[in-house]
């Protein structure tokens, strides 16, 4: 009888919980002891990518710091839906100050803890793309430049969602928002604009920069753990689809995040000291079409008349990303 | 109350001069106040500083309008800025210059007020290596005004500047003091 290799597809899979995996390889989310730092009862929309991302990130961070963690939150959806006074969904020390200043407030928190001799307590600051890429960019850059001991997490849903889906510096080309309507010769957001905040962070040569999505839970948790093993300024950029703003079905949040990666439009990578060290390989690359079609914010690209020329320009962006990061694919241990 | 007004240009230590003067007078047991009046913040712009000395607490914050003593650290200001404005009857003037009064067009002033000319920039360069005349001129000030005594002035300079710089400034200061005292003796 010939030996037939048995492939255990479920081992090492991306499933949240998997009893076939040893405990240390399972996700924090699969643990009944997870902190539920962001617990149930908040007012987020069904399928909210940011709520999902925040829960993933903070539970992993609480585990990595043994509960010694303080969180500073910028104004935005996350802060609004999680603290409807007199209720709060946060089960860890949490503070919200203003829209632009989460990085600065976090810098102050870290400095105070250091002055008190309590640097074992770690600091995590978080905000949406608007807070991070636009109005808070000066504060974020200052925090990077000073190398303050803060992990900053950006939940990127690619527009100002809480205020009604207006365009931000992170809004991708041709996406429809309330301030970039699908009208005119170049409908939706203008191409060529938009800040790549992860690469801006890398330019500051801080200890750790990484991108992640809500579709890659193991990868995201690993990056939070890795970040928390380091000191100094660190940055994590998490793609967090917004069903309302993107015009997608609420059950498609994880699937869309995965398609963003598989299309090449959202590279997932890590950088140490400003140099890329690892890139998550794209299995089963898909054309951008497959990612864009399910989103009503891109409906005008496929309407009457369709705009294959614009889709082609998006495809070029995806191709450029893949080429840019190709040499580091799978480089990390 | 004894009021002094210092005139110079940014970068010449005019404000420091007023502060050193006040420190020395305070050391002599007086109440003092020194403060600047800035023009634009740049080197070379005219700068004025004030020093008040009294035996009761000084309350007023207005600029010195009727100085008893005017110190001119930069002679190029003489006909550009009203450096003698409000000079009290019997008031004294100390000017940083090596030129005769007539050349400066100040003969008339010398007829009504005591005017002491001291080549402070030169003295400063000789004793400190730098053409900054402020501490040096204070020596002349001490020679004409009772409110500032040389020992107190030297101590103030010593506390304000580091080692060698202080020593040089003190030497220049003494030189100016001796110069004015000698002329006073000769003049009498």
């Amino acid at each position, binding site marked *: 009888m010939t030996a037939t290799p048995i492939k255990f597809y479920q081992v090492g899979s991306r499933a949240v919980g998997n009893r076939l995996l040893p405990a240390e390889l399972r996700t924090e989310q699969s643990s009944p002891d997870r902190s539920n730092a962001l617990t149930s009862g908040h007012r987020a929309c069904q399928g909210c990518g940011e709520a999902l991302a925040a829960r993933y990130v903070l539970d992993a961070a609480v585990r990595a710091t043994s509960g010694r963690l303080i969180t500073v939150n910028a104004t935005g959806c996350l802060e609004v839906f999680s603290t409807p006074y007199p209720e709060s969904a946060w089960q860890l020390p949490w503070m919200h100050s203003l829209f632009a200043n989460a990085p600065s*407030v976090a810098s102050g928190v870290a*400095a105070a803890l250091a002055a008190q001799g309590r640097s074992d307590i770690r600091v995590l600051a978080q905000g949406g793309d608007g807070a991070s890429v636009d109005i808070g960019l000066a504060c974020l850059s200052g925090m990077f430049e*000073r190398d303050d001991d803060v992990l900053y997490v950006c939940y990127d849903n690619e527009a100002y969602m809480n205020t009604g889906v207006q365009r931000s510096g992170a809004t991708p080309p041709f996406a429809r928002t309330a301030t970039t309507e699908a009208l005119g010769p170049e409908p939706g957001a203008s191409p060529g604009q938009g800040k790549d905040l992860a690469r801006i962070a890398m330019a500051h040569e801080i200890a750790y920069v990484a991108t992640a999505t809500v579709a890659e839970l193991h990868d995201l948790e690993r990056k939070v753990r890795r970040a928390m093993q380091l000191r100094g300024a660190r940055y994590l950029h998490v793609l967090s689809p917004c069903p309302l703003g993107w015009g997608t079905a609420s059950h498609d949040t994880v699937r869309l995040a995965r398609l963003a990666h598989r299309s090449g439009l959202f590279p997932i990578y890590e950088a140490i000291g400003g140099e890329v060290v690892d890139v998550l390989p794209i299995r089963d690359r898909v054309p951008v079409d497959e990612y864009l079609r399910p989103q009503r914010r891109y409906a005008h690209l496929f309407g009457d008349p369709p705009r294959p020329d614009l889709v082609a320009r998006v495809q070029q962006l995806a191709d450029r990303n893949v080429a840019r990061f190709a040499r580091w694919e799978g480089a990390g241990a | 109350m004894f009021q002094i007004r210092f005139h110079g240009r940014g970068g010449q230590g005019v404000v420091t001069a007023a502060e050193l003067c006040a420190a020395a007078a305070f050391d002599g047991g007086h109440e003092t106040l*020194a403060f600047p009046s800035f023009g634009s913040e740049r080197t070379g712009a005219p700068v004025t500083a004030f020093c008040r000395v009294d035996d009761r607490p000084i309350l*007023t914050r207005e600029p010195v309008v009727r100085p008893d003593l005017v110190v001119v650290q930069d002679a190029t200001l003489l006909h550009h800025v009203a450096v003698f404005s409000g000079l009290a009857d019997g008031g004294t003037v100390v000017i940083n210059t090596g030129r005769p009064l007539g050349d400066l067009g100040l003969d008339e002033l010398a007829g009504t007020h005591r005017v002491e000319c001291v080549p402070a920039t030169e003295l400063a360069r000789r004793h400190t290596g730098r053409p900054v005349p402020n501490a040096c001129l204070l020596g002349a000030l001490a020679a004409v005004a009772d409110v500032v005594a040389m020992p107190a002035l030297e101590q103030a300079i010593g506390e304000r500047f580091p080692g060698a710089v202080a020593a040089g400034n003190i030497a220049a200061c003494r030189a100016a003091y001796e110069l004015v005292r000698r002329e006073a003796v000769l003049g009498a």
Partner: protein
Amino acid sequence: MREQQEGSRAVARVVARCRPAVVPAYPITPQTHIVEGLGLMVRAGELSPCRFLTVESEFAAMSAAIGASAVGTRTYTATASQGLLYMAEPLFNASGLGLPIVLTVANRAIGAPINIWNDHSDAMSMRDCGWVQLYAIDNQHAVDLHVQAFALAERISVPVMVCVDGFVLTHASEPIDVPDQDVVDAVLPDIRPRQRLDPAEPVTIGAMVGPEAFTEVRYLAQLDLLRALSEFPAVVAQLGAHTGREVGPVTRFGPESARTVVIALGSVCGTIRAVLEDGVDTDGVDGDGLGDVALLALTMYRPFPSAAIRAAVGDAERVIVLERAFAPGAGGIVTADVRGALTGRDLPLHTVVAGLGGRPITEAALRELFARARRDDLPDVQFLDLDERSVHAARTSGASS
């Protein structure tokens, strides 16, 4: 022990003795000597433990202070003018969150046109941000006020702004007694915050408050701020027991019988006192002229000490408010508050806007002002020392500055 020193440096020294644990710093004229002094002390190990955070803007400075204060550490920063405006959003945030931060404002005019010299337009623009506002009359007062500010802030969980006239006080060198460390420690014990971020007892700070509760939250904040009216005299007395110096929220100088009362804030009070003590006005009358004028020096502007002002005005027949700023399109700022305090009293209230953008307020101008007051010859609102000719020339030529 009194020593001749620059106001800014004395403020830096006393703030260091208040033991702040975090000092975010961003430079702006004329406050720079204060933060430079503190930075030097931290580097030299004289102020420890303390983190000196060189931030990238005033917005970041106050934000970092908010974070540090929320963790329960004593926090301090300084600014002026445009910098105060740039931290406007965090100022309201800090008071709304009840954080006992102390801020020095080196009063400077607000542009445009850009002007680096002294007036009160900066602090006045933030009079309603929910902070306690205190104004220093001279540099000794400025030093004492900072100790009192920390003590007060921590008693009532409200941030405190100490206003020190830019250049006029910050860059003036005078004899100042900076209280010793043991004196400061006696009146300023370890900070005990009302709440703080701590993993041992997690709290949520900065929740979203809706229409059903917002009014009550703001009303409670108002009550907290009003507590300063009684708590400030208490901290003044406490420090005064060690130093022998006590300057309360409102100080009156001059005879009880004075028929004219001048109300002023900040360093101009010293000049006014000098004029009154001289006792000679432009009518050439010795004594009687200025003997009929009293000064009310306001140390506390927010909360507004209405009752104390009303009592101090007493039976005066006219009040002059000497303003170092004004409300464009409206008139006096402090005047409006004074008018409120004097509700029911029917007496003339004159606004004098003086010293804008660093224009010196001279004794001569003040003497003439008081002489005109005695003759009942004052308009409701005037700009002291206005150059009527150049104003007229500008208006008739049709040119604007």
